[in-house]
Structures are given as structure tokens and as C-alpha cells.
């Protein structure tokens, strides 16, 4: 019975032992490794997206990671157990498909309105919520801001 109890305790505590040290990946473009698990503590090092780190401990929203000769803490906001994907840029072919679909959709709204016997004014009201503005969306997507410009902007956050 004693043996069974020990075996059971070992099996149940196994996941905790295994999870003590694990690999995590940096997900954000640039992340700060801090000296303690608290925002505002000293920055030990900056790491970049995709870097694979060994996590040796956890503290709520913080992961303790091994560095060459020391350790530091990373916010859970910046990491994942899976390697990050490449950033998706504009998908021009998708834009065309979406716009074609929206045209078909607008036409089906008009047909439905006609079947229901709606007058022109009622038709426009019925379809006002269906209006899609792809031209403005394209303009929004055309605003290009390079990461380097954003990093420089970030460094200028001050009172």
C-alpha cells in the first residue's frame, strides 16, 4: 500500500517537475528581459521575435529565463510555447475576391428588396448597413510605418 501511495504521488507530481524547465519563444517584435518580475525594474537585455529561451520558473504573468551567465524575467505578453509566424502583409488577391463578393451581396440585397416590394427609399434604408467602403480600407492599409520608425517613436515616450 505504501508503494502504491508513493507511485501515485510520483505520477501526479510528474507534470509539475517536467514543467519546471521549458522552451518559450519571443512573440513580440522586441521584448525586454527585466531583473525582477515587475514592470519598472531594470532592463537586463532586449530580445527579438523568434528567439528561443529556456524558462526555469514562473511567477503569475512572468517567466524566469536563463541568459548566458544570469537570469531575467519576461512578461507573458511577449512569449508563447510555439515559434512565431512571419508577419502577414497585404493580401491583394484576397482584396479582389472580397470586393467581388461584396458586389454580389449588394445585388442580392436589391433583389430581395424588390421581391419584398420595397420602394427605393426603403431599399436604401434596408441596405445602409450593408455598405462596404473598400476604397477607404485600401487607404488605411496604404499607411506604411516601418518598425524602425516605431522603435524610435517608442524610445521618445517621456513626460
Amino acid at each position: 500500500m505504501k508503494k502504491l501511495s508513493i507511485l501515485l504521488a510520483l505520477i501526479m507530481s510528474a507534470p509539475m517537475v517536467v514543467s519546471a524547465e521549458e522552451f518559450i519563444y519571443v512573440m513580440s517584435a522586441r521584448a525586454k528581459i527585466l531583473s525582477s518580475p515587475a514592470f519598472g525594474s531594470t532592463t537586463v537585455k532586449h530580445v527579438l521575435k523568434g528567439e528561443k529561451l529556456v524558462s526555469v520558473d514562473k511567477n503569475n504573468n512572468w517567466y524566469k529565463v536563463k541568459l548566458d551567465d544570469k537570469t531575467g524575467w519576461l512578461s507573458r505578453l511577449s512569449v508563447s510555447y510555439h515559434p512565431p509566424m512571419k508577419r502577414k502583409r497585404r493580401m491583394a488577391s484576397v482584396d479582389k475576391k472580397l470586393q467581388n463578393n461584396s458586389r454580389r451581396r449588394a445585388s442580392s440585397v436589391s433583389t430581395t428588396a424588390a421581391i419584398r416590394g420595397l420602394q427605393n427609399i426603403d431599399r436604401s434604408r434596408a441596405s445602409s448597413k450593408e455598405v462596404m467602403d473598400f476604397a477607404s480600407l485600401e487607404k488605411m492599409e496604404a499607411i506604411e510605418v516601418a518598425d524602425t520608425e516605431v522603435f524610435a517613436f517608442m524610445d521618445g515616450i517621456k513626460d
Partner: protein
Amino acid sequence: MIKTTFKRIFLIALCVMLPFIAYSEDGSFRMRAHQLDITSDTEEDVDAEIRFGKTISARILGQFPVFEDEKLNHYVNLVGKSLALNSNRDDIEFRFSVLDAQFINAYSAPGGYIFITKGAIDAMQDESELAAVLAHEVAHITEKHIVKEFKIKGTEKSATAGVSRLLGSSKSSAQALFSQAVDNAVNKLLDKGFKQKDELDSDRVALLLLANTGYDPSALSRYLKRIKKSTKKEKKPKHKATHPPTTKRIDTLKQISKLENLDNLKFPKAKSRFEQHVKK
């Protein structure tokens, strides 16, 4: 004998589970449950999310025109992208646009599309407040609230999943399904609003994101308190009814700030840079 064996097993199990149970006492159990995603998205899932978000965004822009001020839109993009680069979602391009509307609100669509009204910006006093509102919207996207609710997947065969399949299909039934999902999502964003738990979850992530980026985390509750005062006497238009009661949000923010040790942080508000870029 059997009774004793069960007793022992129960005691061992209790000892093993104790740290987990104790962890939930401070209210952080929910955070622990999704601290890190245990599932990973595929390329198709992210494509589907972007396509769905693009269609929703075109509908939002069909309702409200863009505020035509190139410099202001560029500045809002710099603030928003600073937060996005500090988030855990670098797989999508975050984009920000100012809407020409005087009421106070902001919207986010899957795939990284974020909108803020000029009215919301006019009620702000510094850059950290702008960052706070954008951080809340970024959090809806990083936590995938819409994606999870509408089960947006690239390949699965469920009602609204398989967006690629629906989009590529020439069948009107498939297109109708896709359009229906978009209708429901737009209705949710513009009228009904997110679930209260999703809103509060976004507030929590927003505070962490602000601190991670280097902005004053108390900016969100400061802004909420101000707009609560200024909108008290106004009759709420439909577009404003998309968040939980402000008092509840402010109370929850206070608790989160204490729990995350953010109370005494002296992070910048960046007031002068805000005043240089935003003309009221």
C-alpha cells in the same frame, strides 16, 4: 482497508492540487488558464482571420467616414503600433484609423484593424490616454475575442469556419453563410458590444500592454473617469452602449492594478508630444 486506501489517495491528490487551488484565491486563476496559448494557429487560420476582419472593417468604414488628416492618422498609427510591437501578435499587421464622428468610441476587427472616433481623441489629455484606448482594442485582437466567438478557422468545416472555403466558393449558399457571420460580427461591434467578461479581460491586458510599452497604466481609468463625467448628462446614442458600466470597469481596473503591482509605477504620460500632434 479499502476505506484507508481511498483516504490516502484523496490526501495525496489534495496535496498535489493545493498549489493550483491556492493560486486561484487571488482571482488570477482565469489569467493562468490562458497565460500562454496551448494551441497554435495555422497560416490558414490567420489568413481567415484577416479576411473576416477586412470585410468587417469595410462595413465599419461604410458607416463612418475616415477623418481626413494624414498627420493625425500617422501619429495614431505610431502610438498603436508601439503597443502592437509589444504584444504577442506579431503575425498580423496592426492598422489604425481615425473616424470622422463626434461621439466617443473605438472599434476593433479581427486581423488587426482598429478604429477610433475623433470625438474620443478630443476628450483625451495626453498620449498615454490615447495609448490606453488603443491598447484596449489591441487586446480584443490579441485575445481573439471575435475569432473565438465566431469560430473563425481556416480549414474546419463548421457553420462559420472554413472562411477560405466560403470565400472561394461560387455557391450562393456559402457566400450567404459568410455574409451572415459578417453581419452578426458587425452588429456585435457596432450595437450589441462584446461580452462583459471580454471587455474586462481587454482592460486587464491593456494595463499590462501599457506598462510593457512604457506608458502610464493608470491612463485608462483616468480617461474613463473623465468621459463618465462628461457624458453623464448626455442621452447615450446607440454607438456608446458597447461597454460594461464605467463604474464597474474603473473598480476592476483598480483591482487589476493592485494585483499586478502597477499602482506605484511612475511611467510617462507624454502630454507634450500629444499636444503637438492633436489639434482640438
